[in-house]
């Protein structure tokens, strides 16, 4: 045997394997091919055995070639096997081995039941609590859209194209130029246009997202809720009164508050409403970063441009809006350290309150 002839016969064998594999129908067929070409009595094994007839100096080269061919063939067969297994499992998957219209399987009428009480997601629980408070206060609830246009996210909120505050909302953007909304205020003008008449009292809640990397305290997805109030002669005093009523209801106690100026382009003026930390009564704890105060609510008198977009004449009507993030509330209330646990559905976490 020479190097030339060995090349030729190896190529022939590889081709033969391929041909045979192309005709197989079952796993059994492939097993047969495998034993034929790589088994103890196979041509390849014989070839290896016949190395002794080869001149000594050619032995290493030819031995290597045969071994390499063997490896190749084995891997082709492996691949065919895995394909066939998948195909077989697909075929098995196709078998209609249950009666989908039946209440249970043949010879087994026992349906496992989930005897425990199921749980509501902590964020959902918080949303529901908020909705309870808001509806009791006479606010009509609206869930916000998630995918939104530039107009409702920015323009309608007094942030035209070049407005620098647009950059404060680090937004995602989709290929068709929509924005997964970074705040629930995208609904302000929608709700105004929908309800049309004053007094307008609405509460908007929903999922928002910002283009941020995820870690224990930052998420790209979060929930917000905001209230909207428009009528003739609505004042800053009314705004503070309403927010206080809401905050007291939410924490189920009279929360001592203070107010500082805040800046949001869609309100004028804007304020931040701080409450004495309800978790430590202002003594300082991890929830309030030991300051004794928590930023509870961002608020403001609705900017005349926003009122105008919503179809309300700012010369006649005024109003206020206030909003807050739910995730932090949920985390603080439950002592949750890692924001990611809200989106992991660890069953031990979800059932931990039961």
């Amino acid at each position, binding site marked *: 045997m020479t190097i030339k002839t060995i090349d030729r016969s190896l190529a022939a064998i590889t081709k033969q394997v391929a041909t045979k594999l192309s005709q197989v129908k079952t796993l059994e067929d492939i097993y047969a091919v495998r034993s034929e070409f790589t088994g103890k009595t196979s041509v390849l094994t014989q070839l290896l055995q016949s190395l002794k007839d080869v001149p000594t100096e050619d032995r290493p080269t030819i031995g290597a070639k045969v071994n390499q061919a063997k490896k190749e063939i084995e891997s082709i067969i492996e691949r065919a096997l895995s394909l066939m297994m998948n195909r077989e499992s697909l075929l098995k*998957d196709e078998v209609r081995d249950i009666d989908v219209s039946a209440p249970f399987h043949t010879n087994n009428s026992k349906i496992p039941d989930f005897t425990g009480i199921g749980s509501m997601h902590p964020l959902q629980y918080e949303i529901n609590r908020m909705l309870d408070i808001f509806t009791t206060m006479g606010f009509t609830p609206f869930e916000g859209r998630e995918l939104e*246009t530039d107009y409702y996210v920015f323009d309608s909120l007094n942030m035209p194209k070049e407005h620098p505050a647009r950059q404060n909302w680090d937004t995602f953007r989709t290929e*068709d130029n929509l924005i997964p909304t970074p705040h629930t205020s995208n609904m302000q003008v929608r709700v105004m246009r929908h309800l049309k008449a004053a007094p307008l009292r609405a509460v908007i809640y929903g999922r928002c*997202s910002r283009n941020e990397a995820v870690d224990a305290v930052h998420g790209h997805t979060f929930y917000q809720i905001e209230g909207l109030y428009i009528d003739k002669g609505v004042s800053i005093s009314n705004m503070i009164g309403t927010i206080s009523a809401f905050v007291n209801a939410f924490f189920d106690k009279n929360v001592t508050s203070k107010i500082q100026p805040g800046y949001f382009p869609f309100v004028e003026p804007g304020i931040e409403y701080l409450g004495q930390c309800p978790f430590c009564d202002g003594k300082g704890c991890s929830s309030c970063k030991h300051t004794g105060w928590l930023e509870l609510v961002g608020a403001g008198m609705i900017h005349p441009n926003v009122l105008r977009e919503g179809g309300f004449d700012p010369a006649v009507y005024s109003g206020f809006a206030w909003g807050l993030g739910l995730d932090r509330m949920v985390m603080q209330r439950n002592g949750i350290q890692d924001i990611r646990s809200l989106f992991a*559905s660890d069953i031990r976490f979800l059932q931990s309150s039961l």
Partner: protein
Amino acid sequence: MKYSLNQVKKYVPEISSIPVEELIARIWASIAEVENVEYLSKKYEGVIVARVEKIEKHPRSEKLVVATVDIGKKTPVTVVTAAHNLDAGDFVPYIPVGGRVLDVHANTSKQIEITVRVMAGIDSIGMLASEKELELSEDHEGIMILRQNELKHELVAGEPIVDALDLDDVIFEIENKSLTHRGDCLSIAGISREIATLYSFDLVLPVWQTPSVNIADMVGDAFQKEPSAIVTVEVAAKPAVERYSTIVLDNVQVTPSPLWLRIYLGKHGFNSVNNIVDITNYVMIEYGQPMHAFDASTVIHKTRNEKITYPLIVRYAQAGETILTLDGKEKKLPQMATVIADEKKALAIAGIIGGQESAISETSTRIILESAVFNKYAIRNTSMSIGTTTDASVIFSRKQDPEKTVRALLRAVHLLTELAGAKVVSDITDIYSKTKITNTLIVSHEKVEAFLGIAVSPTKIVQILEGLGCQVVKKNNLYRMETPTWRPDIAIDEDVYEEIARMVGYGNIIPELPKRGIFGVSLSPYEKGKQATLRAFTALGINQGMNFSFVSKQLYERCLLSMNDARSVINAISPDVQYMRKHLIPGLLEQFSKNQYNSEKFGLFELGKVSRKGLHYTGISVEDLHMPESRFGIDDLGLPIEDEHVAIGIIDDSQQPGYFTLKEVITRYAESMHILLEFIHPDELTAKEVKQLPTWATELFPLYKKGRMAVVRNAGTKDFYGVIGEPGTLVLKEFGFTKQVAIAELSLYKIISTASFEPLYKEPPKFPIVTEDLCFEVPLDVQYAAILKVLTEVSDNFVQDVVIRIYPIDIYQKKEDKKQVTNRVVFAPIKASLSDSQIKKYREQFITGMLTLKGKLV
């Protein structure tokens, strides 16, 4: 920005009467959140000024010296030190025994306590400190020497160091982010105006801040009557430049700054560089005007008739232009960037950072001083684009008053003549196309009070507005005002209301609920349906989970689902958020796989929105498009539809196929919504029915075992709800499932819109009920649904006499081709008790009916 209270006191002397804590609380309540307050006098408590009387060699150590220092007491003390820079007569900082000092070897803010130390046999009492040990600079070369001429203060041994070094101060810090719209507050002068207005105190402005000031006022005769130099400025980047003022100074000596200036800078968080750079920073801190000094020798210039001309060009960057800046980085300039250039090269990036080549060095003698105002958008965009934020860029990107530039220039010139021996050799070149930057506003007293909701006196209103710099004329009930040049943010009536409200203090506005009538609000039918869904699933023992609205392509691939029509996110920070989800199942399935060993069995459900490309409002039949908030959509053609789905899954390790376990959950959920479901294999749908399935549903088919899936629909109306099944073997393998898993996704909107929440109560029949278990043997391929249909149709015949309920008890297969199906039939007679013969009659009709399925009673 950090503000020194001592500096504020220069502008508002009366503020000394206000306790610091109260002042900080007022700033917080009326201007912006105070992030940090540092009481320097506490920090330097106990440290005093000492005078060195005598320096002697240490008898036993060459490294040490023995200093005898006067600390203002009867007898001097002995301090042993390793520093050799002391001479008799020097004033030095002295920390007595018991005081604390920064541990300079610790590389942290760790402090050590001073004790009496025996150093090579001599008691060292207290310690003489370096600048670094006092946290005044990084200098640790020897003991800090206090020089009379570097301080505006007469030194006395024994006095507290805080008095000598103006460290009897409070530094308060406001985050720049809180002043986004208040560029005027980014200076001592600006914040002082606010504070003065808050308390109705007088604002004392230094003479150089008055509009009429000129060079002679500021520098006396330190300028040439016949200027020997001139800067010409060509502004090519017009939109980026609001004003450009510049002047040339000669004879400049670049030296370290005097101690008082270094301390001033340190308090405000700046490092000292040299006297020239420090002076520009000093003016910026005080007046909010960023400045830049170029070494004039590096700028291309021409000399004619002994007059030197420096032509500066303010232009946009050229394509591919780069500049080596002061931070040592070579920056590629975007073409929107504005540069200050000479005829050959860029010298600085306008308003952001200077270039290395034209920077002031120790050998600089002639400088070109720039005081300009650049457009805030231009600076912000360039700053973001090149990723460089400096104190100047922060100030410029918050809109500055162009009226300031020349005044600031003169202030700097004055300091340069004093501290660097500079001589003015040019006139001021001032490029300023003045436009009206003030606003005229008229607000009524009535509106102010209505907007605030409280009474405010007219005197108070005028005092506030004038305090802030407005020119106010009050006539009848109207305030007519001209806003100051530094407050372009006061542009509409509401801005005026805000100024009054915050200066009055929100805390002084008495909260009052709006007056309103009595009215009721309830959730919308859709919201009610959602709440009912939540109640039903939780009552069934299922737990609500949540996934993000974003998915990765990989997740869909692992589920064998196509990404067709998935809306991609173009600026995703990670592949996990690259697409908007089209289905809830992929996320929920992954959560099941990660959780499968955390409990032996459990169920999860999720309510969430999904969307897909191509499915949006077209102006027709919004209702048909599964649109929960169709109430907003009608006027929004082209807006994508956000359908709300509910996905439900279970995992357990019993023998019952997961399909049936989940089917039971869903059936019971639907019952709670008064919906009767049917589950039908897709193969049994007509071609037309298949065609009508929504894309999202047929897209899910490849996920499932084809033999163990079904379409879920309304048993009566055939309304389509969703898909249920067990994941296929490949998917199970991909996720590593080892238990029974089944998962379903339904259109929540469809369910809610066909559900009913009104309970319909019926009085139960008064006669005894009779129960019969009927077991029929049928061919194997007869489906349970067919049997139930026959039995129900039969029982419908007796509906006048008896209410019949049928439910399955058992399905038993022993023979290869036959199965035995047992149903329990509960008869509730309406008119009279049932007799045996009647029951027999009913039974026989059931038997007859079942013949159509080749069934026979066993």
